[in-house]
């Protein structure tokens, strides 16, 4: 487009830059280095460069497909020394582009996603979010399917896959596992996914609410992977039904562990075992598996991560009259993505900061209230966040009839052989470059390595693993 033509006014831009402190950017590159998309699409996407372009001439950026490649994981914001909210700057630009009908760049971006990002359908829904710029998702998903067909046809023509015959076992069918399967099977390896649940998809199916990811989208994606020749064996729990030794014996040359985080952490307060106190993951799972789920009228969600937000929004959609999130630190420290918080607040979820539960009060086994205490923030701790300390004497009682606990999830790794080393927080330690665990031939990725994170980060891990597995198998072959 014409560079002279001004679409974004100087005032708009200044407001944007000032609000988000763009003037403080030193171009240290930390945003790019922590961005999953910048790794998946290194040639095409670099948030730092994009930001710089906006700074220099925002109008030029509107015509760029780069604008549509941010996956909303907020990893850049979390790492940025100036706490710049890049995704929100990009959203502002996307909206401007949509308003002016500049859709050509989006087409280009989708093409790049289809060609380079595994699970393009799912990621477009839960990560790239063209809907937030006011676009219709159904049309876009049709477009993606068409593009993928074309692309595969073209690719088939280009190269003939040489089947090496080696087999890879994948434990867990979440986004990380599906990515490894997708990539490895395209490289010509035999892939089997072992899934403990009856449905494949991991967190995608289990916990991401349907209003974020419609079921048919996930089904399509999984069908597609199956069509690539991947075998998915559901209801098989490694550690119970078979173990690592069996896998080696069956001829699998490499194993990928992508079991995610499913163990809800326990809240150490009185009353946590009451029947109206549920864990967020269980709650979301129940809702997602179409079981009839009753919610209270006045629901309290405890926690501050994305899961807490999802649970709160789901509760509202199920008809709860009042949903309040209690978080023990302030908005600054909240691990949920700022945009998700904004959306939840928009949907009517109330968030109370600097409040921690002390005791759940019951009446005949029914929850009727939670005793809370107000917190204040003291100095920074090792997580870089300010530590909350209770304010003595600030206890108060908040009435509620249902409590959803979302205070963090941890992996359940009892099935692993002893040789695999873990980190202090219970996740699997891997070589950050090769994603190999301390046991040769065993790789890991996704939440089971990083702790609770986003879909795109799991996919990034999966892609890294697929490459490492290939290198590893080649080295085995000599």
């Amino acid at each position, binding site marked *: 487009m014409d560079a002279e033509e001004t679409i974004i006014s100087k005032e708009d831009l200044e407001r944007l830059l000032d609000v988000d402190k763009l003037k403080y950017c030193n171009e240290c590159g930390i945003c790019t280095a*922590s961005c999953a998309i910048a790794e998946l699409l290194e040639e095409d996407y670099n948030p730092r460069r994009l930001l710089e372009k906006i700074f220099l001439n925002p109008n030029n950026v509107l015509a760029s497909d780069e604008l549509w490649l941010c996956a909303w994981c907020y990893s850049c914001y979390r790492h940025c020394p100036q706490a710049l909210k890049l995704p929100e700057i990009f959203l502002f630009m996307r909206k401007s582009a949509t308003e002016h009908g500049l859709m050509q760049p989006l087409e280009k971006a989708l093409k790049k996603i289809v060609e380079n990002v595994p699970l393009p359908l799912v990621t477009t829904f839960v990560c790239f979010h063209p809907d937030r710029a006011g676009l219709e998702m159904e049309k876009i998903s049709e477009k993606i399917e068409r593009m993928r067909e074309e692309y595969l046809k073209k690719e088939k023509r280009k190269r003939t896959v040489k089947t090496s015959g080696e087999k890879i076992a994948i434990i867990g069918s979440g986004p990380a596992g599906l990515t490894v399967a997708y990539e490895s099977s395209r490289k010509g390896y035999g892939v089997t996914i072992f899934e403990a649940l009856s449905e494949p998809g991991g967190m995608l199916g289990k916990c991401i609410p349907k209003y974020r990811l419609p079921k048919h989208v996930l089904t399509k994606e999984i069908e597609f992977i199956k069509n690539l020749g991947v075998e998915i064996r559901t209801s098989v729990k490694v550690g119970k039904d078979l173990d690592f030794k069996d896998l080696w014996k069956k001829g699998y040359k490499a194993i990928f562990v992508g079991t995610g985080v499913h163990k809800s952490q326990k809240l150490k307060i009185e009353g946590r075992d009451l029947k109206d106190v549920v864990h967020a993951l269980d709650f979301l799972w129940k809702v997602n598996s179409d079981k009839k789920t009753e919610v209270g009228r006045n629901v309290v969600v405890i926690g501050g991560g994305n899961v807490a937000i999802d649970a709160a929004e789901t509760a509202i959609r199920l008809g709860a009259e009042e949903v309040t999130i209690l978080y023990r630190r302030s908005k600054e420290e909240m691990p949920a993505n700022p945009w998700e918080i904004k959306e939840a607040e928009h949907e009517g979820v109330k968030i109370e900061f600097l409040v921690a539960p002390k005791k759940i009060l019951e009446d005949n086994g029914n929850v009727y209230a939670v005793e809370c205490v107000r917190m204040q923030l003291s100095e920074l701790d*090792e997580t870089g966040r300010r530590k909350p300390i209770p304010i003595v004497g600030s206890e108060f009682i908040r009435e509620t009839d249902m409590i959803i606990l979302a205070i963090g999830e941890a992996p359940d790794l009892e099935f692993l052989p002893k040789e695999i080393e873990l980190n202090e927080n219970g996740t699997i330690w891997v070589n950050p470059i090769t994603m190999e665990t301390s046991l040769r031939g065993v790789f890991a990725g996704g939440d089971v390595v990083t702790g609770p994170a986003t879909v795109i980060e799991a996919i990034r891990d999966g892609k890294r693993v697929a490459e490492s597995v290939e290198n590893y198998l080649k080295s085995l072959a000599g």
Partner: protein
Amino acid sequence: MSEKQESKPQNGGEEIRIGVYVCHCGLNIAGSVDCDEVAKFAATLPNVVLAKDNRYTCSDQGQEIMKSDIREQKLNRVVVASCSPRLHESTFRKACEEAGLNKYLFEMANIREHCSWVHLHDREAATEKAKDLVKMAVAKVALLQPAEEVEVPINRKTLVIGGGVAGIQASLDLADTGYKVYLVEKEPSIGGMMARIDKTFPTMDCSICILAPKMSDVLHHPNIELLTNSEVVEVKGYVGNFQAKVLKKPRYVTKDCSACNDCTEVCPIIAPNEFDVGLDIRHAIYTPFAQAVPSTYTIDMNLCLNKDNVIVCDKCIKACERQAINFEMKPENVELEIGTIIVAIGADVFDPSVLPNYGYGRHTNVITSLEFERLINAGGPSGGHLIRPSDMQVPKRVAFVQCVGSRTDRNGRLYCSNVCCMNTIKDSLLIKEHWPETEIYVFYVDIRAHGKGFEDLYKRARKEGVKFIRGLPAKILEDKKTHNLWLIGENTLQKELYKMNVDMAVLSIGLEPRRNSEIVQRLLTLSRTQDGFFMEAHPKLRPVDAATGGMFFAGCAEAPKDIKDSVTQASAAAARAGILMAKGKVTVEAITPISYPEKCKACGLCTKVCPYNAITLDKELQQIKIVEAACGGCGTCAAECPFGALTQSHFTDEQILAQIDAVTEYDSEKKIVAFCCNWCAYAGADFAGVNRMQYPPNVRIIRTMCSGRVAPKFVERAFARGASVVLVAGCHPGDCHYINANNHTKDRVERLWKKMEQSGLDKERLQLLWASAAEGERFASKIREIQTIIKRVTPEEIHKAKRVFEKALEGV
């Protein structure tokens, strides 16, 4: 307004002849104020016999014009409308004196910081405001009285707080000049941060080798009294006449100690040595480092077993041949009489364990630059062998990460810490010197090599093969088995992601204000800038003076700086303190209270509010007595007196009321009458000007020394004259430059609020603001915020307030 009003003879029949000078200040003022018009307007004001505008009133030429006008035109009052009186009042006062006019017959109108600079884009409004400011000054100056200043003798002794290189240099300079110096250091030894560093940049001198002789000079200088293990706990008095209390904590080892180390060898208690940042150990009886001054050992009572007066373990006592160990030592309170104070408390280093991505504290081989200094130092825990903590091996690949805790808005500091770039370059060369094969990577955002010889050193490092990579790592990951590290980031010049494998990573940590600077600030009633360092009186013209008279800054207390700058500043501070003391006396500004005994009812209220106990009540004579030398000049007594029996010289009720009347003469319903204390709020408004923070032009500032001077009747008068909003602004509670005088401000404003509420007035129309000298933005945004209040104040409201407060219109 255009008609010349008739001059009325005042002040005992003397004819008032005012000269007004409107300064262009180049384009600084003239750029947004029509100075010519202001001068023309000034000429129409009562008693003004002459009004001129000129380019630079403060220039020699400008001053000469003023002087000859005073002589030839027989001016007996002068107004200069230019910059802040905090900058040039003394210049013009001196010019007046030289022309034979008493300097207290001069007044300034601040049309630069408070007008042209903050209303850059509204020439018309800025000009109107400038006129008002001149009118206020003219109204005040007509009522000014000549005054003589009291001279007070000065103590020719200096207290230097902090025994780092800055404190050492300042002490030596003053002591060599011939003044007595008390050097107070809270650690057992002087030396500070410089004693811990291995080499200094850019010359690569051995740090302790050049510092140790200075430390020893301090110890042996006949004019220096060294107080280590000591802390200043109280400072009273005023410039030239401070009284300080120093708490000298016991060492439990007497001066007989010969530093033979026999005691340390037998001491069974070990703990990490703070001097070596915990990389080495020390005993409960110890000396922090070999060259410590004084060399006398110290027993750390937090560690020693002999608590509560009971000697449990007597190993050191038995080992000490010279019987220098004395557990009966008690803390001592030392009282000092001093004339000047030099603050050289230095800086702290940033603690990077709050940055989870860098894994400091979790990954063994991630160390800070300070830890590196101790590792590479021959006197350090590894004897100068650069080893990595995990396996004691010499690392082959070392990464330096710059800007850790600096230039960040999150978990760190916004400013550049000034020394880290060069420090890293120096460190990289030190490695290259001993282990030339080592691969060194420096991850940076900008290399700031601005000083003399710095660029050469940078080039040398590049020549030696140190690799500089632009782009900071987003995270540092550790290999569990080898404890090697991966640095993951973007090379922002190549626009490529890197994954660098190294043996050790050094985090180049920034400098922070001392964690106890708040205490020091309160103790000495200083100001701090937003970054937390102490604020100088003027960044260009008085860079080492504190705003409080008789106090000076040296070294990192004022801002992060390297050794050379610290030493330079220390010598400057010593010179400034020396100048003050050489005069032998200080003049106390003639702003002390004036009493009218005939009105005094001997109620004693003034004695209660005086922060200096300078007013006493003689119950028998039913009279008050004012001790002028003890008076700090806040004027809170004058504000408190319900009978008008007290007023403050140079800030009399009449003068302030005249200013209020001048502001409210017309368009009062659109204006804000603001009372600002000289030290914080007025200076904060100046700061807003210097930084060109724009705010609406309808505020008129009346300067008082302290917000405690603002009597309720001033506020009432402003409302009675139809002012829309009144703002009272002072220092933050606890930061008052007159101990606690601003507590009374709060009480008075609260009383007024109550009265307004009871009378059905909108109490929001009286605003109270606490703003420090550094909080220009706070001041500016307050003025912006007040606009919404003004919008909702109806003419009826204004009228109602006029009625409620009409009593205040009576003459005084």
